């Protein structure tokens, strides 16, 4: 049975979550560990921490966040943002992260993917691909870095294949055209990557409704769907998202604790 994972993404800046505002009853709504525990309780299948400052100081802070999370949250979690070297990856994995997500550094030096995969296993290595559609139809998608500002000239599908060939165990594919628009995933991009690689693909960028999550899994064929604002802003709980997906025929782990 194939089930689709629902993954809330937490943006972390200097050890603090910068978007989670809905949980008014939390002791500290900016504490990534407390938010992670809350999403776990709601039925999240996995979590992604994205370190959006990624200065060298904040990387050390992130290692601390990871260590504290690993003591309290018992679902898989991935850490991305500013992982520049095998040493960075090692520090995060040793602190208790299940996976690290490589992006800019892997584009600069693809060998990094191989090194981390060899040392820790492919299941620990996520390659994050931020892509925009090229202007002409049928020209595919180009990989960008720095939050969608810097084009790399690389074709997203060929990078997806190379990263997987080098040992990436999973790809996190974000449409920079859709990110922040709340108009839904770029389903063509998602589908194209899913068909190009043998490993699981996480669809990301653009979720504004629960139907978008369904489409990502059905039309896009994604193995997991990632969203931030619809969960953080209090529009929907993870549990509602899963009930909605299940009602539309997508197999998900039930969010109801009595069923799991």
């Amino acid at each position, binding site marked *: 049975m194939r089930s689709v994972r629902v993954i809330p993404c937490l943006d972390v800046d200097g050890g603090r979550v910068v978007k989670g505002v809905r949980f008014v009853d939390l002791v500290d709504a900016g504490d990534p560990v407390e938010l992670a525990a809350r999403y776990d309780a709601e039925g999240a299948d996995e979590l992604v921490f994205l370190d959006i400052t990624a200065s060298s100081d904040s990387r050390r802070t992130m290692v601390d966040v990871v260590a504290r999370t690993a003591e309290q949250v018992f679902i898989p979690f991935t850490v991305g943002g500013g992982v520049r070297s095998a040493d960075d990856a090692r520090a995060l994995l*040793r602190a208790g992260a299940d996976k690290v997500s490589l992006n800019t550094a892997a584009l600069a030096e693809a060998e990094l993917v191989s090194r981390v995969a060899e040392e*820790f296993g492919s299941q620990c290595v996520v390659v994050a691909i931020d892509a925009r559609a090229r202007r002409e139809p049928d020209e595919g998608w180009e990989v960008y870095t720095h939050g969608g500002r810097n084009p790399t000239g690389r074709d997203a599908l060929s990078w997806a294949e190379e990263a997987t060939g080098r040992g990436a165990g999973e790809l996190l594919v974000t449409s920079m055209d859709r990110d922040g628009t709340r108009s839904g995933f770029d389903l063509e991009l998602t589908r194209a990557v899913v068909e190009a690689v043998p490993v699981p693909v996480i669809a990301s960028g653009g979720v504004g409704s629960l139907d978008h999550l369904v489409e990502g899994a059905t039309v896009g064929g994604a193995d997991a769907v990632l969203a931030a604002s619809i969960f953080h802003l209090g529009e929907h709980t993870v549990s509602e998202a899963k009930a909605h997906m299940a009602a539309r025929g997508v197999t998900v782990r039930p969010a109801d604790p009595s069923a799991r």
Partner: protein
Amino acid sequence: MTAGGTGAPGIAVLDYGIGNLRSAEKALQRLGADARLVADPEVASGAGAMVLPGVGAFGPCAAALRRSGLEAVVRGGVEREVPFLGICVGFQLLFEASEEAPGVAGLGVFPGVVRALPPGVKRPQMQWNRVDRRPERHSATLAGLPEEPWAYFVHSFAPEDGEDVVATCDYGGQVVAAAERGRVWGVQFHPEKSGSVGLAMLANFVRATERAGSARS
């Protein structure tokens, strides 16, 4: 609970130098167990119970276990019937061999070999899946858990079916999810990453450990 052996914890999480083993240790500690990562064979052999985690591939894990000197500890523990839990590749290592690493011997605690997941499905299986109990077998591992527990799996290989199997999952066919033989339990999924269900399963192991400890003393 204390166990024999100098400085040995109640539950030794065997640290043979591969991957991230901390989550198993943390999950057991969360349940109040006296659990600790142990790399020293002498210390580990005095523990009241053992957990053999494992991530990555069968060949390197088997080699690392041998190199670390902990293979003899595992064999000794199984022989003395201390509660024992193998997780993921740590479970697979308890079988005789694996298709993933032809020619590399497993520990042979469970009969049979580890085989690739069925064709036609994505490999690895990296997802949550429902754990289906064998109706005719009581499972101490899954006792008291929800009727249809879901667990987190990350693997490309799984042990073949046999009489010790207590649960399977459906992934391109029936795939072995858990087995038990006396006090040796093994799970293909990651209980330390399977939320409340996983913690409940580990709590079963901790209780079995405590029972075994009080029976000895």
